[in-house]
């Protein structure tokens, strides 16, 4: 057979397979979110007789006195605070670790690497939070998210720090820069690309996290977004139109991020994992 025809056939097959495996599931979600309760319960791909997407979303938003809206707010606070702290503390950590590169920092970097492999110990973590009087608070959860994201963020930052020549530091020091000025005025601006990657990827990690809120900030009243959909599906499990409208709603922020920060997300997730 002609080579070009063969190539074309392979491509068509690839597109068809991804259509079934990836596009249809998401199309199904959107379609079901537009249906009324009865049609949604059939769980099929037929078009809805009446389009009720906005009614469904409105119903989702008003359930349990606006549990979802509160959850959105909680997740916003959680994500913004966690990501800000992650970026600031790990940029500083990686700066010193990469520049010093002596025995103690190398030892500490091993400890940091272990964080990518070792599963966190749940009850002892809760016990420490309790000791600090921040268990079951958003502050406690923020600290946990920071601690669990430090490993991957440090690895990205340290890798990038290595590409900034130390001669730049030396020149700045000779010109009279102290640590603060050197870091704020010179290093931090140069770290911008990797800061974007770290911020975007840790935003996804924290926003999508389910396990840690489940343990450290439980209860439907003050849930984060991932917990809220879990509780919601428990309560409205058979109303697939509402469950899928909820899924649609909570996925909008990450899909928007994927479109805007595609490069950072792909790079960050692939590089962050390979170097680990």
């Amino acid at each position: 057979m002609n080579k070009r025809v063969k190539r074309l056939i392979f491509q068509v097959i690839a597109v068809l397979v991804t259509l079934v495996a990836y596009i249809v599931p998401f199309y199904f979600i959107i379609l079901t979110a537009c249906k009324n309760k009865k049609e949604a319960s059939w769980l099929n791909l037929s078009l809805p007789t009446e389009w009720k997407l906005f009614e469904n979303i409105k119903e989702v938003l008003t359930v349990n006195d606006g549990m979802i809206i509160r959850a959105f707010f909680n997740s916003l606070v959680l994500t913004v605070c966690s990501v800000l702290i992650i970026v600031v503390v790990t940029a500083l950590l990686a700066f010193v670790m990469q520049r010093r590169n002596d025995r103690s920092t190398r030892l500490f970097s091993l400890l940091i690497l272990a964080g990518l492999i070792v599963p966190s110990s749940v009850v002892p973590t809760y016990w420490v939070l309790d000791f600090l009087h921040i268990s079951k608070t958003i502050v406690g959860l923020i600290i946990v998210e920071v601690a669990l994201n430090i490993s991957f963020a440090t690895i990205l930052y340290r890798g990038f720090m290595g590409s900034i020549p130390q001669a730049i530091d030396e020149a700045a020091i000779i010109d009279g820069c102290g640590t603060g000025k050197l870091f704020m005025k010179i290093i931090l601006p140069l770290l911008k690309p990797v800061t974007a990657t770290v911020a975007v990827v840790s935003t996804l990690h924290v926003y999508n996290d389910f396990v840690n809120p489940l343990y450290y900030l439980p209860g439907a009243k003050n849930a984060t977004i991932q917990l809220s959909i879990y509780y919601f599906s428990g309560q409205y499990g058979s109303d697939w139109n509402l469950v899928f409208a909820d899924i649609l709603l909570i996925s909008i922020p990450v899909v928007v991020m994927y479109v805007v920060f595609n490069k950072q997300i792909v790079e960050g997730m692939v590089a962050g994992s390979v170097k680990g």
Partner: protein
Amino acid sequence: MKRKGKHKSIAQKIYSRKLMLPAAAIYVVIFVIPTFSSFFFSFTRWTLKDWEWIGLDNFITFFQEPSLLIGLKNTILYGAMTCGLKVVIALLLAILLTRGWKIEGYLRTVIFIPTIISTIAIGLMFKSFMHPTNGIINQALDQLGIGSVFWLTDKRLALLSVALVDVWKGLGVATLIYVAGIKGIDRTYTEAAEIDGASGVQRFRYITLPLIRPAMNSVLILSLIGGLRNFDLIWVMTGGGPGFTTDLLTTVIYKQYANGLYGLSTAGNVILFLVVALIAFPVYYYLTKKEEVY
């Protein structure tokens, strides 16, 4: 000598360890200390306020109670299944994605989307797709005349079904790691082999495969660790059921925590730690050693 000494002190002053303190403090207090103390508390009956040393009792309970022990077996099985499938399928996808096809960009974007959607959302989606009576998968199978498959309610199948969803979700990252590896191969190797008359299969077997070893190791280790530590997907899709047949160590830890048996839950955590350490470190060591041979 004098100058060198002075230079060192400047470096120490500029790159002050104090700057490491915020991150180090959070990491040590919230991650390192709990990890070490879990070893201690796993030997106790623990109420958070008070503890009582009971020796190996928690571990004995764990290994004698079938509903707990199954978590260990399933964790290893789940890790092996998801890891094996991801390593193989992602490699095949990566090969397709590096042939200069026009649809490359489309394919990459599409298979990466599930990576960014939350596991809970994905789990709920597939729970509906795998619904025993009117899930869309069984509807399609009915049309084809195959009949219904009880994806999540059949004891022998449920763990595999969740593992397949895990693979579906994780393929994006695994594939792109391979793609980066394949694109990093110097073209002169494959060109030289082509001139020497090597077939496509031979070129893959003797050039591509050895040279993407590091990428393959990354995918293997990553998906193994991810599989062993999985919680959300199994929790939202089966909750460990039917019965205890799909419980993993992580769900056992959660259930015992919810029961208020903190010592037992922590013992489960220690066992998970040991499983991950005993599997991941030797595999990592073995693979990286093999890497050096090439």
